[in-house]
């Protein structure tokens, strides 16, 4: 996950609290010592309890696929270590306030692109067919809400002439500009169920409540 470490425009520094909350990691901030939950992005103990950090757009991808989409990318000066994680075991979670949906990556890959609404926000979630790379986009173009379908490496507006690159949301043809990238994060479905008990799992047949 990638958060903006800023409260009311002031940067904060956080470290590793080292405890588990709901089997997920916790942080502490260097200013107040409050303890934060990673999946919630929220302080759960201490003076800042209830404060949340903004989630920033990010993706989880294979290095080779990321480079193909972002050839100018820099890389953390760290060794490669074969994580043993597979995107196919994980879900892409999109969360806005109290509303969230987990999109299992294998289902999204099969669908090409999923048009959904999280709360009242129209989103498109896509996972490359041949690459481990996911993206979440807004389906709002100017004052229109569009539906997208996947054609190869492109997202195409259903009933319109818009075409966008599926990996970056860059417009290839049509009007309206690039797709807005929205924040999402990768989670194992069981972790999602722990932290978002009121959430939903997207299935091709419809949304399934976590509980």
């Amino acid at each position, binding site marked *: 996950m990638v958060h903006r470490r800023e409260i009311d425009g002031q940067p904060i520094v956080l470290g590793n609290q080292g405890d588990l909350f709901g089997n997920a990691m916790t*942080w502490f901030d260097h200013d107040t*010592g409050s303890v934060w939950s990673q999946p919630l992005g929220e302080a759960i103990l201490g003076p800042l309890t209830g404060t949340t950090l903004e989630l*920033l757009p990010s993706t989880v991808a294979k290095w080779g696929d990321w480079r193909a989409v972002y*050839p100018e990318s820099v*890389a953390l000066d760290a060794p490669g270590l074969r994580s043993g994680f597979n995107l196919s075991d994980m879900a892409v979670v999109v969360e806005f306030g109290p509303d969230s949906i987990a999109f299992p990556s294998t289902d999204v890959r099969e669908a090409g692109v999923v048009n959904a609404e999280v709360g009242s926000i129209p989103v498109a979630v896509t996972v490359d067919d041949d690459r481990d790379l996911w993206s979440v986009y807004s389906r709002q173009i100017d004052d229109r809400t569009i539906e997208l379908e996947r054609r190869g490496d492109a997202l195409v507006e259903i009933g319109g002439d818009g075409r966008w690159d599926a990996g970056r949301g860059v417009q290839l043809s049509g009007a309206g500009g690039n797709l807005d990238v929205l924040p999402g994060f990768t989670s194992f479905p069981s972790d999602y169920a722990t932290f978002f008990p009121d959430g939903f799992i997207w299935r091709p047949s419809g949304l399934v409540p976590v509980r």
Partner: protein
Amino acid sequence: MSTGSVVVIFVAVIAGLALLQLMLSRLNSGELSGSDDAFHPDGWEGAGPDYPGDLYNPLVAREPLPAGYRPVLSRDSIRPVYAPKFRRADDIDWSDNELIIGVEIDGDARAYPVGFLNRREIVVDLHRGIPTFVTW
């Protein structure tokens, strides 16, 4: 034993130690590579790892803990990367299959390898002026 063979043995021992050191440093893969050509795209020096010794800690203060909270390790026993450095993609030797967290802000794309994050868990970064926090 001649002076020459003593020198040869001495050099061999030194070379052996250096090799061992190299192997150990490779094994200790939770460390940044520390490459000479590493840089920070924002020219950032990094955040300091230090925090006040008397900083409030709800566990030390014996606050009631929420259900599902389990104390495990002390603070920063898994050390975050407080001062990340980066290299150009061409200078990186990861496998194409290496899983990464990718972040792009204003055309500045950065990749953080998941396997490394699985050990260090946290990277504190500054990305095009935006203070970011990358966690796994």
